[in-house]
């Protein structure tokens, strides 16, 4: 359910009292309603579902999550038997 795609706010305006924006999804642009993300401005990222931004995308969190993924498994690798790599010969 609920296809939601991240995009960057390019331009903001008001139409009939509602905040609207042009959001860029990587080369394609779509008109999106910002009524549910009053704090969001130009150049910020939002997650869009059926023409509505449902949240601001927290860029710091995104980077933290990716950093977490990169750290997984590296601990064991770094602390694995250091002699194994040098062939174990003295």
């Amino acid at each position, binding site marked *: *359910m609920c*296809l939601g795609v991240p995009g960057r706010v390019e331009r903001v305006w008001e139409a009939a009292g509602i905040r609207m924006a042009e959001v860029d999804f*990587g*080369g*394609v*642009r*779509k008109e999106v309603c910002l009524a549910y993300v009053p704090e969001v401005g130009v150049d910020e990222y939002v997650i869009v579902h059926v023409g509505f931004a449902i949240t601001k995308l927290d860029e710091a969190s995104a980077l933290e999550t990716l950093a977490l993924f990169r750290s997984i498994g590296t601990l064991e690798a770094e602390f694995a038997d250091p002699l194994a790599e040098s062939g174990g010969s003295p």
Partner: protein
Amino acid sequence: MGHGGGGRLSAELIEHLFLPAFDGTALSPVLRQLGDAAVLGLGDAAGGARLAFTTDSYVVRPRFFPGGNVGDLAVHGTINDLAVSGAVPLALSVGLILEEGMALDELGVITETMGRAAREAGVSIVTGDTKVVDAGHGDGVYINTAGIGLVPDGVDLGPHCVRPGDRILVSGPIGAHGIAVLSVRDGLEFGSEILTDSAPLHGLVGALRESGVAISVMRDPTRGGLAATLNELAVAARLGVEIVERAVPVPDDVRAACGFLGLDPMQVANEGKLVAFVRAEDAEQALEVVTAHPLGAGAALIGEVVAAHPGVVVARTGIGGHRVVDLPLAEQLPRIC
């Protein structure tokens, strides 16, 4: 009905309705091959020459879309059906079904576009027909084009030539045409610079033929996209197809549009792309020949034919899993879930 979308419903109509109905003539075996064009031997009197013959109708909506309109589509589409059957296109017919009230200036633009497309492709429009139907009984204009071409000596293409190990070549990034049309469709409009890839492929096919690479079969993946074409060939050849998803060229903006519309780029229509099954030892050379051609920028080898799972197309996914690439049921619609 969903029977025109190039998917499973179209295939069922052909199999259960049309083939039984049109059977029982001298050349029925030609029909049953279900190629993009029928290849007909002209007999010894004609020195063994073979003619390719095809027809297609164009009902695209909207009629005008970024980079083209239904006119050049109708010319390119029929040229391509001839080209992928191995033929050198000779001549086209044009049948127009006009709805009463169709704006003449719009019709003028469409027919001018057809003429230009034919001249640029070096293929003549030699005969035609026009009918007018009452207002409300058509959708502005429907175009049918038929085409004939000459199949050069020694050319033998078709699913019967496909062998395990054949590599699969696609002549460039996929999905542009379908997305360009969707970008201007009522209710879905979005801003993009994506243009239709509509183009005549006979030049590219000629370059491949002249290079001497061993080709088993060719198709142009139009309705139903690459997924439909690969499924069709897997079934017809009674062999399996395996592709590497990351190797399939998809432009970033097409991928982005597919992302927010919930579409699979492999199921989106193309109008100027060639899919060729090539003998493994010739695959790299074929890629070089195609890439050197103006219509072959971004070509790629995307997979191979296997003996396992006959009739089924399997993709190795970006993260190393596998999935079945299914025949799209019918035309792709944007989804929310």
